[in-house]
């Protein structure tokens, strides 16, 4: 009797050791799986960002200096650029919400098959080159472009409208490019709203409009917030479309970075702008995180 109990005791101990080492091994295997991604993050994200910070503190004479940041504070043009950037980003986000929310709502009410078809048409621009889409707008919106020609033929306006190389063009292009980034999370969030909530609201006496504003809309706000935040942040650093459609009249931070490098070959100034933009973006995210859980940006959904 005593002998067997010693035996089982030993077996239990060696089992426990084995189980512990199994668990360690499993953890290492998981880590091994993620190591390529971790390596990439390290090489192409952390090192360059660190380098960016470093360069931003190098003055024109090659020594350590704060002149790149001082310039941003002293020169009024920089303040204007940041102001324009935020203004354009806010307007684009606002317009995306105005256009995208109703569309997402419409799609969420369709049977899944039709909704998927609509989703493809929303996603289609994603699969076309950004440059192509931007230049297409340039062609459409110019003085003798299709839009102006049709507008005047139909008698909607007499003189060609200035639709491009200004704020109008920038916004039209940016809204078009950004729309899917808003629609997808909003739509996802709306799909996740159980239809029984609306039935319950109706059953309890809410008219369709009342049910929408008291139940559906509040439940869709996490998705809306996630989409709006995504669009806003992407707009802050957007370059190609505003550069082409703004025609040099709408100068955003990203464009100033490019001209710092291309025109003035001032890497320090460009890096400092990049750092400030990064910090501002982080701040926006931080403020947003106080209101909503950021997981919802990737997950969507009403919960």
């Amino acid at each position, binding site marked *: 009797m005593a002998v067997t109990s010693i035996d089982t005791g030993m077996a239990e101990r060696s089992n426990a050791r084995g189980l512990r080492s199994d668990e360690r091994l499993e953890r290492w295997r998981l880590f091994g799986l993620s190591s390529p991604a971790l390596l990439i993050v390290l090489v192409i994200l952390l090192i360059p960002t660190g380098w960016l910070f470093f360069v931003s503190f190098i003055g024109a004479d090659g020594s350590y200096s704060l002149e790149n940041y001082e310039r941003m504070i002293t020169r009024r043009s920089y303040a204007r650029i940041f102001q324009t950037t935020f203004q354009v980003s806010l307007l684009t986000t606002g317009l995306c919400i105005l256009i995208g929310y109703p569309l997402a709502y419409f799609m969420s009410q369709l049977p899944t098959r039709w909704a998927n078809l609509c989703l493809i048409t929303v996603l289609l621009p994603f699969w076309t080159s950004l440059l192509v889409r931007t230049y297409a707008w340039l062609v459409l919106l110019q003085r003798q472009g299709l839009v102006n020609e049709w507008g005047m033929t139909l008698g909607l306006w007499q003189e060609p409208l200035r639709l491009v190389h200004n704020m109008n063009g920038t916004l039209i292009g940016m809204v078009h490019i950004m729309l899917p980034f808003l629609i997808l999370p909003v739509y996802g969030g709306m799909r996740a709203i*159980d239809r029984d*909530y609306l039935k*319950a609201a109706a*059953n309890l006496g809410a008219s369709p409009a009342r049910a929408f504003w008291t139940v559906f809309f509040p439940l869709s706000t996490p998705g809306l917030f996630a989409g709006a935040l995504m669009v806003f942040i992407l707009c802050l650093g957007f370059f190609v479309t505003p550069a082409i459609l703004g025609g040099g009249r709408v100068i955003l931070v990203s464009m100033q970075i490019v001209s710092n490098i291309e025109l003035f070959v001032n890497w320090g100034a460009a890096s400092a702008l990049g750092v400030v933009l990064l910090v501002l973006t982080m701040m926006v995210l931080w403020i947003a995180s106080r209101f909503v859980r950021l997981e919802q940006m990737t997950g969507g959904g009403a919960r």
Partner: protein
Amino acid sequence: MSDVKQDALPITVRGVTKTYGKVFALDDVSLDVRSGEFLTLLGPSGSGKTTLLMVLAGFTRPDRGSLKFGETEMIRKPPHLRDLGMVFQNYALFPHMTVAGNVGYPLKLRGVSKTEMASRVERALETVQLGGYGDRGIEQLSGGQKQRVALARSIVFEPRILLMDEPLSALDKKLRDRMQIELRHLHEKLGMTTVYVTHDQREALTMSDRIAVVNHGRIMQLATPQELYEQPANKFVADFIGDSTFLEVTRQGDTYVAAGVPLRTNRKIPDTRDLLLMLRPERVSLLEGDPGEANVFDATVSELVYQGESFLLYARLQDGTELSVRGAMRAGTFQTLPSLGDPVKLTLDPADTVLIEGGEG
């Protein structure tokens, strides 16, 4: 939510039909729910019971038919003007509102003042034994509590009709059993006409004044629980409610014969050629001593199952039909039972010879 019974409304359904493509979800259904009655729609999934409930609530538009609450035609009224309470299967509590927000929602829509709302919400919560839970979030509640909140929300505006769509199906068995009794008491207290949907026959038997058994979009039988169990109208109802085996009955002159045994019966015999004898396991017994007036079937034991409070014995008749016998278990009972392969005599009291129409009815 006064303790005085409010005037309930009767529901009159006439000729309601709903098709999806070529499938009849509801096939010319007519039904009278008496005022203040607890009526259960019982049927398997896809039988049309939920569709019928959704027609009552206004969420499903039937192809034709008439629906009256009291004297008022309701069939084209949108759901938000029907003024009836409903408990959804998944409760459908608004996750962005507190418990009080949910329960107060219908009152807010009806323009009830803030102070009155607060007291009515609290009273409704007390009715479902959740007094003081108003500030909780929905996610903080257990399944049983959610169910109670859903119930409070559906009765707080004192509707005269209450609909429930399998409200207990998400709860575990113990809680479900308790809630069945509670719902029953609540119904007695509030007295509103209640239509309850379930696929659980025991739940239906426990709670209902009357049960409508639904299958293939039609009402197979509408009767009290006792009638339904004791005298099912057809094979489907007999099969769906309780356990049963069926023996074909042939007529030889004036006597009816089942499995070679001439039946002694004192029950009503349906006037049809296609007769079945329904055998409930708890109504069949193992012969001990003198059978007296009982019908006796010879069989051999094919399976014996120990089930704690009872035993279940399967026995094969000469013609191959397998019957089951259920008996109460006391200490030592199991040891006295015959073993596999033993010949046994099964008895059926003449009062328990339930004869029903064959076919699906």
